[in-house]
């Protein structure tokens, strides 16, 4: 269950960014997880649900984008997608390849609500705007 530690890392980064902007709530957190990492999404979601109550991210959605494994052949330079166990170059069979993708463990973005944002949302279709429009007619 290292997903608990991973989730704490996700929340630390999310809270830091959210607090910098004076957010009142985090609605969604997006992360990118490579296929070659040892991350189980089920365990991640479980840890997320356990750690978020009573925080800015209570009720937030954790959206996980999965990234497949891809390598560049160390001999002929071919780039190819592969699974966890078949990282041989399909062109020349060379096993010494450099990973290009698949080890990602990134927090990409968050959606937050801020007091100003809430005010904007309330004012947008509000009576003040309507009154100005009416006055111009």
């Amino acid at each position: 269950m290292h997903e608990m530690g991973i989730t704490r890392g996700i929340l630390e980064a999310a809270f830091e960014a959210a607090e910098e902007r004076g957010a009142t709530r985090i609605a969604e957190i997006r992360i990118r997880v490579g296929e070659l990492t040892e991350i189980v999404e089920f365990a991640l979601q479980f840890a997320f649900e356990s750690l978020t109550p009573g925080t800015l991210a209570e009720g937030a959605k954790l959206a996980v984008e999965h990234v497949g494994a891809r390598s560049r052949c160390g001999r002929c330079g071919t780039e190819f997608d592969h699974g966890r166990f078949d990282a041989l170059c399909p062109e020349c069979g060379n096993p010494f390849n450099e990973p290009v993708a698949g080890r990602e463990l990134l927090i990409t973005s968050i959606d937050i609500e801020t007091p100003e944002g809430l005010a904007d949302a309330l004012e947008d279709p509000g009576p003040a705007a309507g009154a100005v429009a009416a006055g111009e007619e």
Partner: protein
Amino acid sequence: MERVDIGKPILDRNERLAAENREAFARAGVFVLDLMASPGAGKTSTILATVAALRDRYRIAVIEGDIASKVDSEKVKAHGIPAVQINTGGACHLESEMIRRAAEALPLDELDLIIVENVGNLVCPTEFDLGEDAKVMILSVPEGHDKPYKYPNIFQISEAVVLNKYDTMGVFDFDEEEFRSVVRSLNPAAPVFAISATKGDGVEAWAEWLADRIESARSRAAAQG
């Protein structure tokens, strides 16, 4: 609703502290080995055998990571080697902050090698940089030759693989050829050292590999001034 782009590693904090550890170890001229394996694979026995092989050449200390208890650090201390116990209190792996705190209890300037025994686990320790110079894993024969299929990541990130309890090969249905071939396909550069830690067989070749790694880290450091 406002979208804020973050775009940073999830383990950013762990990675920053790991980089600080790596710098502190390099300044003190200490080589740090992170040893990973399942519970019962023989991590502590392998450490004791490694210490016995290298203690005339290097000043060694051990950091023991366990969920609870001081059993392992006391075993190591009984051999006259400084040892610090980290109890993770449930966490299934070590993190760089724990290593920083443990290292504070060690006289870094008087050491050449720190062996870190990670928590017994083939999965979780793989994602956490501790600031070590090398990650090495141990698999023991009774665990079976199919483990690389089930836990590929740890085989991929280890610089070397120690195959322990090699003396029990006759008792278990362990296909060594298949094991070596899967490890080669996952990690072609990693040597596999067959050892029996408690009997000492094969330990010399493994200890020599480690000594070579220590020496090459030193000459790199010397070249950089």
